[in-house]
């Protein structure tokens, strides 16, 4: 690993086989507890349902009946995006969420006071509070493994290299080549998601190759970090505070009666 290089994931969903080895490896390595009672969702083979405080990798299963080509399966391993402009980190009042030397976004459990602000701030619905614990948790991109020069557990366990770990710049080049290959092979619907630094989150540390629109996988099509609008929002608060003060002043204009 080059010192200072931003590390990330490229998840190529075109080769995901839905084995969920990533989910298991993540749970095992990070000692993530069970995320609720065992239950069947009836949503294809997806009984994990969504990312959450105790689910840091989630494999989505989409069954599509297409008139021309018959049944198609889409499988995709979702994860925290480690946004360049990370709303969770920016709204965190305690500084529990921070950016590591690898450019990833990590919660410090010894600092988090469970205020829950990061939860509705995330445009992807990734981070959540573990209710029996009271603190917020999400993917750390295996911060501990990275510090020892190892790749994250999910990428290590992935049997088809659908989850690729590496330097972000190199991954982006690899992803462009992969999309070009797929387009040549006639897979016109292949597209990259969150690889563009000009997007609303400044590009993601974990980006994806998808075979349909993002919302089909439960991903927002054009996410924007909420803090991008903060200047406007603070201005509104300041104007409103001024209006309140003016209302009080006007109330006294009429004297005591």
């Amino acid at each position, binding site marked *: 690993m080059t010192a200072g290089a931003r590390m990330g994931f490229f998840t190529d969903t075109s080769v995901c086989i839905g084995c969920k080895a990533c989910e298991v490896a993540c749970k095992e390595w990070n000692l993530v507890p069970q995320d609720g009672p065992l239950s069947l969702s009836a*949503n294809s083979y997806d009984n994990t349902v969504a990312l*959450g405080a105790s689910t840091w990798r989630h494999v989505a299963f989409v069954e*599509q009946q297409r008139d021309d080509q018959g049944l198609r399966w889409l499988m995709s391993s979702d994860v925290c995006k480690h946004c360049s402009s990370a*709303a969770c980190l*920016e*709204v*965190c*009042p*305690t*500084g*529990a969420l921070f950016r590591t030397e690898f450019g990833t976004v990590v919660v410090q459990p010894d600092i*988090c*006071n469970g*205020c*829950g*602000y990061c*939860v*509705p*701030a*995330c*445009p*992807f*619905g990734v*981070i*959540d509070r*573990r*209710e029996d614990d*009271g603190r917020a948790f999400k993917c750390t991109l295996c911060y501990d493994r990275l510090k020892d020069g190892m790749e994250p557990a999910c990428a290590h366990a992935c049997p088809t290299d659908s989850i690729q770990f590496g330097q972000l710049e190199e991954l982006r080049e690899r992803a462009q080549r992969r999309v070009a290959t797929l387009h040549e092979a006639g897979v016109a619907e292949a597209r990259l998601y969150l690889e563009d630094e000009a997007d609303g989150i400044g590009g993601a540390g974990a980006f994806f190759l998808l075979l349909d629109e993002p*919302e*089909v*996988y*439960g991903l*927002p*099509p*054009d*996410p924007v970090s*909420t*803090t991008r*609008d*903060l200047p*406007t*929002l*603070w201005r*509104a*608060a300041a*104007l*409103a*505070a001024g*209006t*309140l*003060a003016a*209302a*009080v002043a*006007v*109330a*006294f204009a*009429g*004297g*005591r*009666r």
Partner: protein
Amino acid sequence: MSAPDRRDGDRRGTRVRGSVVPEAEFRSYYGRPILKPPVWTWEVPWYFFAGGLAGASASLGLGARLAGNHPLARNAFTAAGAAGTVAVPLLASDLGRPERFLYMLRMFKVTSPLSVGSWILATMAPAAVGAAASDRLGVLPRLGRAAEVAAGLLGPALATYTGTLVADTAVPAWHEAGRELPFVFAGSAAASAGAAAVLSTPAADAGPARRLVVAGALLELGAAGAMERRLGELGEPYRQGPAGRLARAAKACTAAGAGLVAAAGRRRALAAAGAALVLAGSACERWAVYKAGFQSAADPKYVVGPQRARLAARQAEQDDPVEP
């Protein structure tokens, strides 16, 4: 919310506010939410109410002091101190780890309205308590006056920052309402502070409080109306379900209460009834906003619809650039 089955492939038209593009279509992953619902509980809307009451009361108190209306100043600062005292444990008990409440003051982050607000509360609440205590007990008068000025100046910030707090999230009904929410909260806070003072102060001294009730109610109702108009379809949560009922209750209580207070003049019983209605309306307003966020986060159409429209508009601009 009516469609029981919104599996992928089940395309459903959804109109998007302010969009120049044709109706966007909306797909989802088994109709599941994209956003996580907030994890906040009942303490949070009551914190918004208490913070608003404390902040606006402190401003009313300072105004009364400057105007020489000392009975009103005393009661307003007492209300500010009491509401500020209640606000602190409300904010703390909503934490997953309340014993780490002081970690809120580990740093000062302008990108986090909750950090900024914690500092405002940590300064304003003790100042309001000190101001009220100094006045009531007749001790440390100069420090008491300094506390009154501090609390009075910080009050409007405490009353309005909570609008920005919820707006600085990915929840569409909160984020897209970011320009109006602080005004809704400012009006609601002013009305509640005026109402509390009407209840506690002899009618002869409560004239400014009655006028603040009316001014606050007008601001609250006007800002809430403007917010719902600008939100369009994204504002649905403010009209439907529990949030819709609370919003209607807020409007009815605030309007009726402010009308009663205005009509009552110095008839104290009538004014008190109106003030009680205004306080109820103010609490309902915060609860409506709070609940609307949950309803907004629960339905992926509020996330996908506007984002699709944005993408389509960008695409249209690329395909057919408009001459400047």
